[in-house]
């Protein structure tokens, strides 16, 4: 090889480095610009509703009287979804990564991924046409046996189209997201940690408790937060499943509403200040997810030393 060809190749490599790093930087900045655009648009369009006199907002008592019941409704639905989905998702991820026969594992993972493949509008149709009908006897049972708890206060909805049904549908929707991410993290647990635990005489469960879960904790938190983000922002499933109404403590009566469903159901026919009110509601949702993600980031950075290749 001659000297010239050596220098040429070196020069080309240097240019490649520069072009590539510039491209990655540009992509990152584009994301910031897009997000800035979204936030800017939301704030500008929401301002008229925030500064309008209270009697012009729907309900006649100002924006905050309008927004807080649906904020609570959104949080209730997302909380139900997370409470159901998180333990099941971690169990499924462990089953696929550490319990299932090796030959079956990837096939079973694909089966769970199918849950993610089903579109939200189909879940909405399923929840409204099938699940709500099937689950309403259970609500009657809850109302008559656990009715002394405020959350199960009767009379139960006859159609089953309640916030609990919506929460269950949401939990099914976020399950594959949490599962697929935690599964990948569990599979990345250092083999040596696992084998060391087993060699010390640990049972499989003790090995998972000592090696897999501590390694995967930041991954689990970030997966759960991704699931929460989806549960908070999910529109169509709630819009189709929930028979909405005023804020109620009971989860098995019709009532409650989420922000996203409120926007979806009202936006197409909305005009004038109502549009601004709904966009302001979107802004509130945006702020809630911002808070959620800030907490998630804080948790993840605390456990950073465990995460991957540092």
């Amino acid at each position, binding site marked *: 090889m001659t000297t010239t060809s050596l220098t040429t190749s070196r020069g080309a490599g240097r240019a490649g*480095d520069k072009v590539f790093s510039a491209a990655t930087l540009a992509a990152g900045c584009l994301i910031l610009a897009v997000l800035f*655009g979204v936030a800017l648009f939301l704030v500008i369009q929401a301002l008229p509703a925030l500064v309008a006199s209270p009697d012009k907002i729907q309900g006649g008592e100002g924006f905050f009287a309008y927004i807080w019941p649906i904020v609570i409704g959104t949080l209730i639905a997302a909380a139900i979804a997370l409470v159901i989905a998180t333990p099941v998702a971690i*169990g499924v991820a462990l089953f696929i990564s550490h319990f299932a026969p090796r030959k079956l594992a990837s096939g079973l993972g*694909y089966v769970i991924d*199918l849950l993610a493949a089903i*579109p939200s509008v189909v879940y909405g*149709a399923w929840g409204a046409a099938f699940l709500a009908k099937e689950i309403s006897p259970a609500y009657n049972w809850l109302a008559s046996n656990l009715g002394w708890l405020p959350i199960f206060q009767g009379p139960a909805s006859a159609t089953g189209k309640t916030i609990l049904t919506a929460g269950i549908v949401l939990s099914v929707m976020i399950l594959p997201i949490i599962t697929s991410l935690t599964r*990948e993290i569990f599979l990345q647990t250092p083999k040596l940690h696992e084998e060391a635990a087993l060699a010390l005489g640990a049972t499989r469960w003790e090995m998972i408790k000592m090696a897999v879960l501590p390694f995967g904790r930041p991954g689990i938190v970030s997966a759960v937060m991704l699931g929460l983000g989806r549960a908070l922002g999910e529109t169509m499933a709630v819009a189709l499943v929930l028979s909405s109404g005023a804020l109620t403590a009971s989860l098995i009566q019709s009532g409650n509403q989420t922000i996203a469903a409120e926007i979806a159901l009202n936006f197409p026919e909305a005009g004038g200040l109502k549009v601004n009110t709904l966009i302001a509601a979107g802004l509130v949702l945006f702020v809630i997810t911002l808070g959620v993600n800030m907490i*998630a980031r804080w948790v993840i950075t605390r456990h950073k030393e465990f995460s991957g290749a540092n």
Partner: protein
Amino acid sequence: MTATLTPVKKRSALTKGQLPKWAPYLVLGIALILGAAVLALIGFNALGWGIVSAVFFAVGLVGWSAAVEGSRRAKDKLATCLVVGAFLIALLPLFSVIWTVLVNGLPGLTDPGFLSTSMNGVTGAYDNKSVEQGAPVVGGIFHALIGTLLITVLATVISVPVGLLTAVYLVEYGNDRPLARAITFFVDVMTGIPSIVAGLFAAAFFFAIVGPGTKTGAVAAVALSVLMIPVVVRSSEEMLKIVPNELREAAYALGVRKWRTILKVVIPTAISGIASGITLAIARVIGETAPILVTAGFATSINYNVFSGWMASLPTFIYTQILNPTSPSNPDPSSQRAWGAALVLIILVMLLNLGARLIARMFAPKAGR
């Protein structure tokens, strides 16, 4: 010497204090019989039988194990039962949804012309006629199929390069700089953007640049990209982070340029995880209804051009057929078309998933697991 050898009649010390191998099968058999007996008392159904038997099985096996093997092994058995139970619970909604869609969707899908015709010119009069006189249900989803494919492909073409390059920046070039921290933070924020707000953003953006009332497939693709990019970035970032530093250092030590290291070593190592992340991102956006309703309108005829004219898509087709049936007095043909479209949508995404898995397997590095 022979006299001091212990006789080998006893069970081996290694398997002493363990349940025999046939223990789970015995417990399962007893649990199934007990479950059937209990269900016979309160009214039999298959789902209840499964649940009651599973509880009996777990209690029986864990109890037996605790008595024979001690609490540590009993806990291990309990964890195994719970984990397998979680998997079975997760399968229930999957089969329920797929069964519902299959049963309701097959009549629509097998309708002649369902895949090859559009809803152009199909009015409530046809639906009334099909219900009252038994005429075949007319109208199809060809326009929606074309719309969904074009919009999703365009959104993927926009999102994957941006998302992947950003992930590379964050992991390889960011070095925890303020800009990298800001991007990570705001990508997290973007994952929480409700789909309908993303749609409103794209619509307002094009209203401002192209002109008011711009509703095309391209606008919808931009809206979907806003939803898709953060998912691609987050999953790719997690996967790139997991690539061991030793691989990078080995490449640098051989004098390989950083960009070639990334393209030839880092990304190929992580490609299976990245492909699975991108698949999940596509699966998320292909079924999004709200942003497409806001940005692409609702068309009943075929449109191949993403840059002009309203465009239908499968999710909005399902949504409008359920919510606003073509014939309000006879919603059955509309609901048949909606479930048929749902079936097509699910099949489409399943094929995408399968394709991504095959690609991932083809490019996966040889690894221990």
